[in-house]
């Protein structure tokens, strides 16, 4: 029985005096798709950013595949990891952003191939082949030479997913991947994510797409004001929310 892919124990995060995460405890198993739901400001994006150490947590323990994020435990003290080690662990975690954040000075192919070449020092030819295959997989084999500003939002987000996959991560984080898209472009991105989930990728998805959460998610976690209000299978939570706050939120988005 393998251990959890992500394990959070009483994770707290403060920005100055503002406490954004007030003790998050949850586990994500390998091959699990977890959807994080909640009103804006509930801390779900912050939690996601803590997982790859874009934000430092203030207390609690956060582990990815058994290793602490950003720290090392020696004796009874935590030691900050050197940049090299933080970066190595990030290469195993893919992240997709709400605003795509493609590199605008690079073509779609260069965007996908950049990190394997620059970070993992893989041979260019191998990476180019893999990058082409990935762009093909997200349905963009005809946009290989296009710059991001020549692509629609949905196409950009699919390139961003291919870019994250090029590092062959064992965990994918999605931070509201469809929130910045025109409604008719949401479907193409969700289709790519659905296919990824079917292939067994471990995914944590911050989303407002209830339909996606119900169909694809294995677990649904509802967060509000920095705490997990309730968690369960999506059908359970959506059909019979136990908490008032979950009910109120779902009644607005459904």
């Amino acid at each position: 029985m393998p251990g959890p892919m992500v394990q959070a124990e009483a994770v707290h995060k403060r920005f100055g005096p503002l406490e954004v995460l007030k003790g998050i405890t949850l586990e994500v198993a390998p091959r699990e798709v977890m959807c994080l739901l909640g009103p804006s400001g509930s801390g779900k994006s912050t939690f996601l950013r803590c997982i790859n150490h874009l934000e430092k947590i203030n207390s609690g323990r956060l582990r990815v595949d058994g290793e602490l994020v950003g720290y090392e435990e020696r004796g009874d003290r935590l030691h900050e990891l050197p940049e090299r080690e933080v970066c190595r662990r990030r290469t195993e975690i893919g992240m997709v952003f709400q605003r795509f954040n493609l590199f605008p000075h690079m073509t779609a192919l260069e965007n996908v191939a950049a990190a394997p070449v620059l970070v993992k020092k893989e041979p260019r030819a191998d990476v180019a082949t893999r990058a082409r295959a990935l762009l093909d997989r997200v349905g963009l084999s005809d946009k290989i030479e296009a710059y991001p500003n020549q692509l629609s939002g949905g196409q950009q987000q699919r390139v961003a997913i291919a870019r994250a996959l090029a590092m062959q991560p064992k965990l994918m984080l999605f931070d509201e991947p469809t929130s910045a898209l025109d409604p008719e472009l949401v479907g193409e991105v969700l289709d790519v994510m659905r296919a990824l989930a079917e292939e067994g990728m471990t995914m944590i998805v911050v989303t407002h797409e209830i339909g996606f959460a119900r169909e694809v998610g294995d677990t649904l976690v509802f967060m509000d004001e920095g705490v997990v209000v309730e968690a369960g299978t999506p059908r359970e939570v959506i059909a019979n929310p136990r908490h008032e706050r979950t009910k109120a939120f779902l009644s607005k988005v459904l």
Partner: protein
Amino acid sequence: MQSTEGHRPEEIRAVPLRHPGRWAAAAVLLVLAVMLAHNMLTNPRWQWGVIRSNLFSPPIVSGAENTIKITIFAMAIGVILGILLAVMRLSPNQVLSSAAWLFIWFFRGTPVYLQLTFWFAISSLFPTFGLGVPFGPEFVHLSANTIITPLVAGLLGLGLNEGAYYAEIVRAGILSVDHGQFEAAQSLGMRRATLMRKIVLPQAMRVIVPPTGNELNNMLKTTSLLVVVTYPELMYQTTNDAARTFEAIPFYVGACMWYLFMTTLLTMGQFYVERYYARGSSYALPPTPIQRMRRNLTTLRRIPFSASGTGGS
């Protein structure tokens, strides 16, 4: 909605707006231009013959070459130093960022002329330079006068000063790059140095290039201050020749021509560099002069009533 094809309304042929102000301004400027041209042709003190026979004389040409050489070297020092200082100033390491701030504060806060004089006179402060253990034994021992030649003094003065200014330009460029770019690069496991070199600086270049053109242009002209360190660049040679022959004006007019020629070349180069770094950032790149010329010629032919008197060309 019905299609309007087939009965399109007739083309608008309005009477063009008249611009009497433009005509008046053009007339005044034309008179001034004719006066200047008349003076240049009839006033013998311009001494066009002297200009013609000295514009390509060996001292002037070698002076121009030295001007170009020192512009390139000093600018290279300035650019490398500026990038280094900008990255240092934005570094989370406070010792580095304070050191960069202090450097910029000093070199932007004192006149470049003074800095040049100072470097030239440095031998009276440090008669010798040594290489060795601080406060310990020295391995290499050199006299300041052999190291600090006019060229080195000039490069130090111009290069360090430029570095301080250029740092601020690079910093503005780095700050102009969207924060999401840093996060995307970090999430892919890029280290800070890679992130800066491959992701942030290439994007910052769009903001950095136009002021760099300015700086380069300025640098080329500021080399004329190297007269003070007796480095034989264009201005030094011009002044020498002017003093030797008692013909000030023709030599200074010649120097003007040389400087204008060199700065014009730089401006043309800048245009193409800007186009290169604009890739992926705008849908339509600005047309090159050749493209623009071709377009103007074709549109000229399409103007239906260009001879009606407002264009006035």
